[in-house]
Structure formats: structure tokens, C-alpha cells
């Protein structure tokens, strides 16, 4: 029995809230194309977000969770992942998913109540969005186990919210990831709120990163509005995973600027003042400031890109709105690979009703 066992969580920030580096930036900052692509994707996600909310408000989309405040994490994650890594997202991963190949139309279909929205054409191995909080964590370790069984050098990246870290699925998955040395990186997107529940009620722990210690995993805390910090730490963790060195937990601290979803009203439980202060940390603005100062980007390019984003989003919205619903019988088409004989009468009944159009 040792007298004392020591554990640490390292904190990482590169870019201050004012867009000025607080220390030397990681090497990837020199890759201007990459940083610009990351930034542009953040702006695209933000543009998409505003539109999706507008669609919901006008009855053209269902309940929708805003990505506002999560763009830097998503862009960094999406860029760090290799094409053959697998993303196991939660429902605020738009920015990462766009980079993985999920189309905005697919996104809208999903939140617009159409199952085809999870049939990702361009990233066929990525998991769909998990609505039951934290359940995706178990899938992530399952995917990672499959890589281990087959001896593949691939990594899994799994996102979960601060609220999600309280649920057994996350904690059980962190534990097995350590026990089995799985190639998985958990990114905890701590946006300070789980609907109306603030982080201090969610857990008594000082950080959420330290939950990784329970599974013996290296654990990091990064400023989640700092594109460079997230990129550097996630890239390293993914590389560790791919090279057989095991799993990690990364807490990315950010803020949920919007309501929890369009069904929520955050003014009920948090102050305008808190929100205003949180906006001072905005990761999109922060990177923009840095890019402007570096001369990599300017107001003109910004406006041009915004116009392009709007155009892309509008295109996706048109496609979405033009998508006819599936026939009701689709509910039977993907239940099993082959519809059991037993269910054929039900299928036929539904088909008759749908064709009859009798209501």
C-alpha cells in the first residue's frame, strides 16, 4: 500500500478570449489552410443553426438543438479525425459531422422527423446522433473493441455533454476503455448546462475531466472555445489511440448560448448577465480576431463566405423541404432485414390504409 497516489488533469489554453495567444500556438496553427477551413466550418455551422431555428419557429422543422457555442470543438474534432476513424456523436456535433460528410439536408431531415436523415451517405460508418443521453458511449467502446479484435489502427471519437457524464453509460465506458486499452477518445462538451441543470448540481467534481481518472485514463481539460487547444489535444489523443496507447478523456469547456432546444426557454433558469459574459468567450469570434490579425482573413472574405454559407444552407433547406415523406410502410421496411411472415398482414393493412388515403 503506497502512502499516496497522485493523479492530474492538465489544462490547455492557447488563444485567449480576446483572440490573442496566451502562449506559443501549437504547430498546426502554421497550417493556414487548415485553420481557415476550420474557421469557415464554424461559420457555416453557425449559419446553419440560425436557419434551422428559423425553420422550427415557422413550423417547418421539429425540435432542434442549437450548436451555438460548440462550433470550435466540432471543427477541431472533425479536422483531427482521419477518414477511417469513427465518430460517435451526440446531438450538438453539427460542426464535426459536417466535416465528416453528413449533409445539412440529412441533418434537417433527422430533426424534421424523417429517419433517412441518419442514413449518412458520405460517412457510412459514423454513428447516428444518440438522443438517449450518454448511451452512445457504450457504442463507442464497442466500435473501438471491433478495431481491437481486427487489429485495425483506427480510433473512435465519442462526444458527450456535461449532463451525460453523470449517467452510468459514460462511466462504465470510461472504465472498460481503460481496462481494455481501447482506441477511443471521449470528448466531454461541458457547456455548463444540462437543460436547466447547472454544472454544480450535475456533479461535485471540480472538473469533468477527472471522471477519466476513475477509469485510469489520461485526462485533459481544454478551453472548448479555443480552436487551437481543442485541435492540439484531440489530435494527440487520437494518435495515442491509433497507436495502441489507449483511451483518453478530454473535457472541453464551453457555453451553450442558445436555449437547450427550440422547445426550451433558457431565460427561465439563467440570467442575461451570465449569458452576456459567456459571449465574451465566443470561440468563433476569437479565431476570427486571430485570423484577421494574422492577415489570413478579412472582412471582405468574411462577407463573401457568409454569403456562400447562406447559399449552401438555403440549398440544403430547399432539398429538405422538397423531400417527400417516406410512405408510411417504410416503418416496416427497416424493422428486420426481411419482414417476418407474421407481420405481413400488418404491413398490408397499413399499405391499404395509406393508399386508400381515407383520412
Amino acid at each position, binding site marked *: 500500500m503506497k502512502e499516496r497516489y497522485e493523479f492530474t488533469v492538465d489544462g490547455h489554453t492557447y488563444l485567449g478570449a480576446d483572440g490573442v495567444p496566451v502562449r506559443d500556438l501549437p504547430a498546426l496553427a502554421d497550417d493556414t489552410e487548415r485553420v481557415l477551413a476550420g474557421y469557415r466550418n464554424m461559420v457555416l455551422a453557425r449559419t446553419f443553426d440560425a436557419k434551422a431555428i428559423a425553420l422550427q419557429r415557422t413550423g417547418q422543422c*421539429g*425540435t432542434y438543438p442549437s450548436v451555438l457555442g460548440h462550433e470550435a470543438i466540432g471543427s477541431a474534432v472533425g479536422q483531427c479525425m482521419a477518414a477511417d476513424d469513427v465518430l460517435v456523436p451526440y446531438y450538438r456535433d453539427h460542426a464535426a459531422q459536417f466535416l465528416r460528410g453528413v449533409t445539412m439536408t440529412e441533418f434537417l431531415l*433527422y*430533426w*424534421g*422527423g*424523417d*429517419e433517412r436523415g441518419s442514413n449518412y451517405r458520405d460517412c457510412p460508418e459514423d454513428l447516428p446522433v444518440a*438522443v*438517449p*443521453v*450518454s448511451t452512445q458511449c457504450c457504442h463507442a467502446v464497442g466500435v473501438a473493441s471491433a478495431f481491437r479484435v481486427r487489429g485495425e489502427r483506427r480510433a473512435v471519437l465519442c462526444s458527450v455533454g456535461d*449532463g*451525460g457524464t*453523470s*449517467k*452510468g*453509460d459514460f462511466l462504465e465506458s470510461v472504465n472498460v476503455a481503460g481496462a481494455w486499452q481501447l482506441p477511443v477518445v471521449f470528448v466531454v462538451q461541458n457547456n455548463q448546462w*444540462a*437543460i*436547466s*441543470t447547472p454544472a454544480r*448540481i*450535475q*456533479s461535485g467534481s471540480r472538473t469533468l475531466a477527472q471522471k477519466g481518472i476513475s477509469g485510469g485514463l489520461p485526462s485533459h481539460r481544454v478551453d472548448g472555445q479555443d480552436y487551437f487547444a481543442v485541435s492540439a489535444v484531440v489530435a494527440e489523443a487520437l494518435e495515442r489511440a491509433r497507436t495502441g496507447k489507449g483511451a483518453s478523456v478530454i473535457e472541453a469547456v464551453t457555453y451553450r448560448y442558445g436555449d437547450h432546444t427550440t*422547445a*426550451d426557454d433558457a431565460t*427561465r*433558469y439563467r440570467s442575461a448577465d451570465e449569458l452576456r459574459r459567456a459571449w465574451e468567450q465566443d470561440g468563433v469570434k476569437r479565431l476570427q480576431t486571430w485570423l484577421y490579425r494574422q492577415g489570413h482573413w478579412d472582412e471582405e472574405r468574411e462577407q463573401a463566405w457568409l454569403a456562400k454559407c447562406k447559399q449552401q444552407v438555403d440549398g440544403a433547406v430547399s432539398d429538405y423541404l422538397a423531400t417527400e*415523406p*417516406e410512405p*408510411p410502410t*417504410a*416503418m*416496416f421496411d427497416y*424493422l428486420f432485414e426481411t419482414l417476418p411472415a407474421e*407481420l405481413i398482414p*400488418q404491413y398490408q393493412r*397499413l399499405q391499404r*390504409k*395509406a393508399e386508400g388515403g*381515407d*383520412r
Partner: protein
Amino acid sequence: MSEVTLAEAVNMALHHEMARDDDVVVLGEDVGTNGGVFRTTAGLKERFGFKRVMDTPLAETLIAGTAVGMAVQGLRPVAEFQFMGFIYAGMEQMISHAARMRNRTRGRLTCPIVYRAPFGGGIHAPEHHSESTEALFAHIPGLRVVMPTSPRRAYGLLLAAIRDPDPVVFLEPKRIYRAVTQTVDDDGAALPLDTCFTLREGDDVTLISWGAAITETLQAAARLADQGLSCEVIDVATLSPMDRETLLCSVAKTGRAVIVHEACRHGGLGAEVAASLAEAALLDLQAPVVRVTGYDTIMPYYRNEQAYMPQVADIVEAVEQVVAL
């Protein structure tokens, strides 16, 4: 006396009982400051304090299990699951402990818990937000399963559930949370937990239903009345233990029964009702008992959810079919 919705009646009952009995506590995700995502717990925290109205971490196993610990200490926890689609992580605690603690300890420790959850489809909600899996709970001995379908029944049944010395799964049909208002007298009068409610009397067919589907069932009865068919409509309300007596009496009178529920058919509670009728009232039955239910498939996302749920026309058609025999 005021006109309230079903959701408001739930809130009224919670207020009433928390004021009357200090042992009643409320816990769940977002039940405190936010007043619950459907506002059913609004105002409780302000009135009774955070010690009795507890925002829990996001952990359904914990919600179900911590209520057990509170209850064995004599509290009367009312634990909310935000949606029925998220109740499953709590099932081990409900099945292996809440339902059994009295039995496991031969009466020494008991679990006067209410597990509340909104359920059912039809509100254009996202994936996993439209479940109707009441049958899973009704099959567990030691759990009561109760389902109100009007503001008054919500008030009276919830009071009864909280006062009941044993665990009650209290399922609230969210599609009709705000569908109608009714005057509800905040008089603290509970309704019985073992009695069906006959919502409409009739002679030709017994329509047996529960949850939000009661709406379409009543509409079908009205439409059939226009066609000259007299339907008795029974809201089963207490799915376990179930008041078979009332159902059998009605069928003894009408000789015909149609069961309507939103849950999928295979192994749904409609089967239990039909089996009970066929076992005890076979000689009274002039036609097969027919079930109008959801399909044996996964509740579609909202664009197609209406196609899944029993419609008035389906019920009418089923009744026409059984009276034709």
C-alpha cells in the same frame, strides 16, 4: 375552482400533497427551477424549497434507485422521468427493488414511490420521445400502473398514487396534457387505484382504452352513435392491478369488445384484456374481441407518426366489423 389542463392538474395535485404531507418530495431532471420540461412541477421549488424539490444529475438509474432509498426511510418520493423513452435505465431499480422491497423484507421496509413519466406520441417530438411501453411495467408484480386521461382523473389519481403505500408508475399521456381543460376542485379527494372509469354508457359494443387514445375512442363512439350504434367507453386507467370486474360486466351486457391502445400490439396490454375477456366471458361474446393498436414496429419519427397511431376511422371500422358478426 378553476379550469385546468391535465398538466396543470398534475401540478395541482403535487402542490396539494406536498403541502399536506412533509414527507412528500419531488425529484428528477429539471423539476426544480425549470419546473419540468412540461411545467408539471412548476412552482414547487419556490414553494417547498430545494431540499424537497430536487434537481437530480442526469441519471435515470439513480433517479429510480435513490427514490428507493428515500422511500425506505419513510419519505414519499415522486420521481419524474423526463420522457418514457428514458425510463429504461431505471428499470432494474424499479423491478428488482421498488417493486419488491416490501416483499424482500417481509414488510419491514416499503417503497411508497410514484414514478411519473409522460408518454405517447403525437406531439411531433424527436426520436425516443413518443414511447408507449406501459406493458413492460404492468407485467411486474408489485408495481401499480396508473394512467389518467382527464384533468380531474389526473388530480385524483395522482393524489391516490402518492398516498398509496406501494410503488406506482404514473404515466401521463402528454398528447393530451393541454388538450382540454376541466374544472378541478382542489379538495384533496383521491380517486380509487383499482377501478376503471366508464366514460360513456352504451349497449352494443364495449370500447376499452387508456391513455391519449381515449380521445379517438370517444370520438369514434360519438361518430358511431350517429350511425345508431351505442358504444360503452371504458377508460381502464389502472392497468395493474386491473379492474377486470367492470370490463367483464360491460361485456356481459354488450357481448362485444374492441380494445384501443397506442402501444404496439404484440404483447401489449390489449392482449391481457382480450385474454381475460375470452377466458371469463367467452359465452357472453358474440364476436371476437378485436384490438386496434399501434403496429408491431418502431414508432416512426414524426412525419409518419400519425400513420402509426390508431385513428378514429380504425376504431369505427373495428366496431363495424364486430357488430357485423
